[in-house]
């Protein structure tokens, strides 16, 4: 699972290794709110009997995180950036059963 758009260089370090940052274009953000599917919820409840990984949730959140990341990249691309640095993820549960996934970083022009 990597970034959705190939033309942008994404990194969670302050600089991009092997490249120099020419210009900073401000904060790029992307977020999405996803709720659990009730059927999956019940299945996950059964899976909780033995414990371990809840694959349905892993998939759901991976998908959601990818979407948040892609929105962030679209935001950065709209500013004319060709890279995003210092990307951070944040997750918070908003209402019962729903989670907000948030990705943010600094849009930059790199060479």
């Amino acid at each position, binding site marked *: 699972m990597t970034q959705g758009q190939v033309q942008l260089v994404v990194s969670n370090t302050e600089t991009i290794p092997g490249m120099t940052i020419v210009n900073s274009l401000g904060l790029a953000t992307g977020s999405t709110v996803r709720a659990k599917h009730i059927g999956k919820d019940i299945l996950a409840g059964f899976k909780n009997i033995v414990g371990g990984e809840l694959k349905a949730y892993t998939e759901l959140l991976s998908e959601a995180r990818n979407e948040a990341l892609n929105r962030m990249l679209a935001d950065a691309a709209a500013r004319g950036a060709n890279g995003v640095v210092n990307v951070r993820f944040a997750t918070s*549960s908003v209402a019962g059963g729903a989670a907000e996934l948030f990705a943010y970083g600094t849009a930059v022009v790199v060479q």
Partner: protein
Amino acid sequence: MADALNGGDTLGLVLAIGIPVLLTVGPLAFSAIFGSIYQKGKRTKLLEREKQTGRDPINNLSRPTGDKKVLSSSLMWESVVIGPSWWQMLLGKIGSLFGGRLNAYSETYDWARREAVQRLRESVSASNFDDVINLRIETSMMSSSSKSKDRTAAMEIVAYGTAVKYEN
């Protein structure tokens, strides 16, 4: 009850006590036995995978070490959602009455973290990167949709970092 005792109907008494006990203890016993077998299996698999890839290419320094030239880099992440079994949750609840160390929980989450990091290692080497720098591990609880009936206690762990490829 009195009738059963007077009449010596022990079968009725056994059933009257046995069935509720079986219904309450049964799922927990099932959870304790199969949960430990299942989780042990997953752990031995994880240990094997860790041996295969080696524990190396990952660190949380903000820039690559040494003076190797970096060819390309990219953000990579992997996540895992994991929950303790009913039995472990019960142990945790009992343990939290007395305070102190809750082994049932700390074990599950420790292994979950290792799993997430191992997945990152695997996907990074599958995409032909050499190293991961600036690794961050983030944890978040997933809330349950209904307070009373939903017994899921799930925790999401994301491991993310910048994968780099060096010039040889």
